[in-house]
């Protein structure tokens, strides 16, 4: 106990002084309080509200009235046996997985390319940041212009090398390819930047030793860089898989789930259920099911992050973790 504390315990306070003293002593909680209250009101309460919605039947007709009929777990049963929902779940996983594969491969190539000093590096890093920061709706808009089957410039360019026009957003398969391609274009810098951070944190000594032992650059990559980078790669994979379940804006602007339901990702399906069909209870059940799935993936991510920050350089841990 410091002398300051002793003085405080011996003094009695009254009135305003007591409040001041209380605020001063409890600063750690007082400072946290506003954020905690906000999280309780705008996060915890809505989640509880969602649980309540999911066991009742709430739709367009009775949403404003209240007095919703209790239906138990029917909404969950309906949601999980609904073919559209299962389809949307797979579309999201498939899109996420396909784009992720491209992102990891090209992101790694880019990171290896950038892992040296060269003229114009800073400028190019800036350009890399651009797609990630762009308004997702705008990204959807300009790709919609580019991919238009009649006037789009993509068809013009492939026409120059003799490939006939394609209905990029009109054909179910090509629309899926387009969504994957645009997602890849938009998000590849994320894996690139995380990989670059990982590469620059690798210990130089190991590579020096390997080159003295006569290892080629290819061997050094295969046997040193790749194994050391696995925790970083895991972080990117889990992070982007989680993103796959959140993808909404770009798909909304690009295809709005069409043609048919070929690009109807899970977030779009949830939006349609709740706001186009006004079936709020069903949407709440879907949302809760997805939350549990996300919780699981997030737990995986946090494990991967722990491994990443203690695995690469135990000495210099990120101060945040």
């Amino acid at each position: 106990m410091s002398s300051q504390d002793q003085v405080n315990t011996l003094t009695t306070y009254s009135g305003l002084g007591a409040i001041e003293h209380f605020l001063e002593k409890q600063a750690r909680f007082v400072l946290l309080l506003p954020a905690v209250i906000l999280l309780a009101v705008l996060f915890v309460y809505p989640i509880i509200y969602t649980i309540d919605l999911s066991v009742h039947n709430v739709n367009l007709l009775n949403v404003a009235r209240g007095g919703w009929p209790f239906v138990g777990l029917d909404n969950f049963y309906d949601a999980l046996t609904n073919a559209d929902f299962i389809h949307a779940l797979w579309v999201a996983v498939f899109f996420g997985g396909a784009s992720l594969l491209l992102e990891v491969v090209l992101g790694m190539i880019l990171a290896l390319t950038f892992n040296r000093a060269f003229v114009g590096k800073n400028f190019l890093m800036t350009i890399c940041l651009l797609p990630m920061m762009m308004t997702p709706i705008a990204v959807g808009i300009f790709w919609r212009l580019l991919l238009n089957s009649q006037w789009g410039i993509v068809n013009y360019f492939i026409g120059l090398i003799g490939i006939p026009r394609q209905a990029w957003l009109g054909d179910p398969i090509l629309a899926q390819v387009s969504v994957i391609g645009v997602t890849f274009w938009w998000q590849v810098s994320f894996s690139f930047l995380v990989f670059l951070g990982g590469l620059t944190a690798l210990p130089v000594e190991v590579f020096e030793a390997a080159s003295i032992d006569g290892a080629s650059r290819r061997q050094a990559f295969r046997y040193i860089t790749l194994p050391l980078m696995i925790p970083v790669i895991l972080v990117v994979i889990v992070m982007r898989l989680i993103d796959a379940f959140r993808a909404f804006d770009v798909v909304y602007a690009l295809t709005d789930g069409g043609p048919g339901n070929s690009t109807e990702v899970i977030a779009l399906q949830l939006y349609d259920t709740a706001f186009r069909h006004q079936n709020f209870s069903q949407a709440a059940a879907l949302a809760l099911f997805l939350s549990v799935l996300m919780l699981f993936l997030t737990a995986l991510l946090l494990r991967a992050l722990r491994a990443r920050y203690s695995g690469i350089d135990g000495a210099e841990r990120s101060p945040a973790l």
Partner: protein
Amino acid sequence: MTRRQAHIATMTFVYVFLFFMLAAWSLPPLWMVLTSIKDPGITFSIPPVWFFTPTLENFQAIINRPFFFQYLMNTIVISIITSVIELLLGAMAAYSLSRYRTGGSKMMFLLLGFRTFPYVLLGVPFYIIFTRLGLIDNIWSQIAANTIVGLPFTIWLLVPFFDDIPYELEEAAILDGCSRYGAMWRIAFPLAQAGLVVMLILNFMGTWNNFFFPLILSTQQAKTMTIVASEFITDDQALWGNLAAMGTLLLIPPIFVVFAFQRRLVQGLTLGGVK
């Protein structure tokens, strides 16, 4: 091959590769910008016209639409209020977490966990709660929704900035008669300025870019720019120039921010992966 030749070969490869990446990243948005300043007569020319006299006709058309400035102001006001609330509450909480280690590393992981929460899931309860409160089509419902999205991550990202500030400075201030809060406000906050500014910008951009909350929480009065842009999406080619102009307007703040703050943004975007 000598070392020098090998080096030149590598660097040639690097530059050729990077040239293609640069083209792939800049041409798609650039094409939209070009479309937005083209005369409607040449918007659909095939082969495309690359050089032309620019016109602001498309921008004039969208600015002259009813309520354009109201929607622009909505977006700016919502973004500013949201990012300031997030910064203030986030910095206070982060200061507490940094100085008292409240919750320890478990708390930090919990906060990071919020980063991955799919906020589309909050759409349903928000819509119903705000409908019953009569706050649909009111900018405050959007401010509330956006704030909760960014707050946990704001706290998470600010803690290390406070960790870097030596506590002795505040201790000295407290001994000189400064209150705990005074020390935080006069010493810790100014010293953590770099982190606070980055967070303010990231949160402003997050709200500016947000599409989902205005989509469900606004009907007429409280619309934002992303909603207006989405309403331009149509297969009617006559409005292509307008659509491109709207998309271009949306991109002005992100592009400005990236060029002005690039190095500082990298850390925030990659979960602290790049220092």
